[in-house]
């Protein structure tokens, strides 16, 4: 019986130690994941800002591109809410000339940290509550969504990071 008692004590010690080991490994793994995640999230923010900054250099609307005078009707003269997006000849990012040309545009950005999927939505927002509206206003909102296969939610699906910017025609 003495032999059995020692074996049981050893087994108990091994079980306790195994549990400690599992927890430790989990902690070390989580540390490493946090390091990678924060580096990638920094890249996500940079890419989102990059697209927003670029869009801000363009004209507010198609009717204001190289226009000698403001449109006769503001905001009624702006592109209809349902027609936002790149026009006929504006097929690539390089040919975009106004803010809403980026609507429905998407691309893959290759960086030092791997590939990132970027997609953009531009829409009019109400000037009181900044909510999406289907009528023309002097406010347009750009919403840039960035995702990476390495940044995932708890349910293991790619996580979408959204960066937004509201542009006012009069504040240009």
């Amino acid at each position, binding site marked *: 019986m*003495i*032999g059995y008692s*020692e074996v049981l004590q*050893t087994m108990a*010690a*091994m079980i306790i*130690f195994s549990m*400690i*080991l599992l927890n*430790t490994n989990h*902690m*070390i793994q989580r*540390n*490493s994941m*946090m*390091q990678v995640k*924060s*580096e990638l999230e*920094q*890249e996500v923010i*940079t890419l989102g*800002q*990059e697209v927003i*900054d*670029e869009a*801000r*250099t363009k004209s507010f609307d198609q009717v204001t591109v190289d226009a000698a005078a403001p449109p006769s009707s503001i905001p009624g003269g702006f592109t209809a809410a349902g027609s936002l997006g790149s026009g006929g000849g504006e097929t*690539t*990012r*390089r040919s*975009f000339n106004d803010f809403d040309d980026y609507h429905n545009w998407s691309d893959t950005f*290759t*960086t*030092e*940290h791997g590939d990132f999927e970027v997609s953009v939505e531009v829409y009019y927002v109400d000037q009181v509550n900044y909510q999406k509206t289907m009528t023309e206003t002097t406010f347009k909102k750009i919403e840039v969504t960035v995702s990476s296969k390495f940044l995932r939610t708890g349910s293991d699906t790619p996580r979408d990071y959204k960066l937004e910017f509201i542009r006012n025609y009069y504040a240009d």
Partner: protein
Amino acid sequence: MNMAMITSYIVAGILMLSIVMVNINISNSGAELTITQITRDKLETVTTMLDDDIPNMGYDLLQPPDTILTVADSNQIQFFRNLCRDPARDAAFVNCNDPERITWRFFESMTPGSSKNNNHGTLIRVVEEVGQAPDTTWIQSGVTAFNIRYYDDHGRPLDQNIPSPISSSQFDDIKQLYIELELQSDERTPGRFNSDTRYVRSVWEKRFSPRNLEIEL
């Protein structure tokens, strides 16, 4: 000494060794996390300065000198920008009407004496106010790469940049800039063996579209 005693000594020995190894691993992981955080904090300090300078190049430039950029190379950029018109800064300048000339330059082979990492270089930011001595900020916090690429259009693929150095006649063509900044830690991460150790690396890259580069002065 019976067999049971010998076995228990062996098991105890294995357990002790395992506990020591686990302890070492936890310490190493903690140290690596700390080194990473320090490196990233240093990177953020530099990027905050760049994020303020680059998008605002050409600010308040209504009079000669009539070009925004004066040097555009892969490791150096020089441009005019008025740092005044900001209550937080105005007191630091003698003449708020004239724009300051700002230079960012990276010296790859200028490793700071205090650095333990031979890859470290020195990044400088020089602010020149008209009639005043230049004010140089020495950034010796682990910068290992500072590359700038220039583009004549928005959204060009990364490798389709204007070849550097760019001549002054091409400055007006520049619409977009891509900056890559890499920092490495001063200390190596601890490892069980020497071959495991490495410097922690943090990279920041961004394409800038300064609004003033769109304006013909």
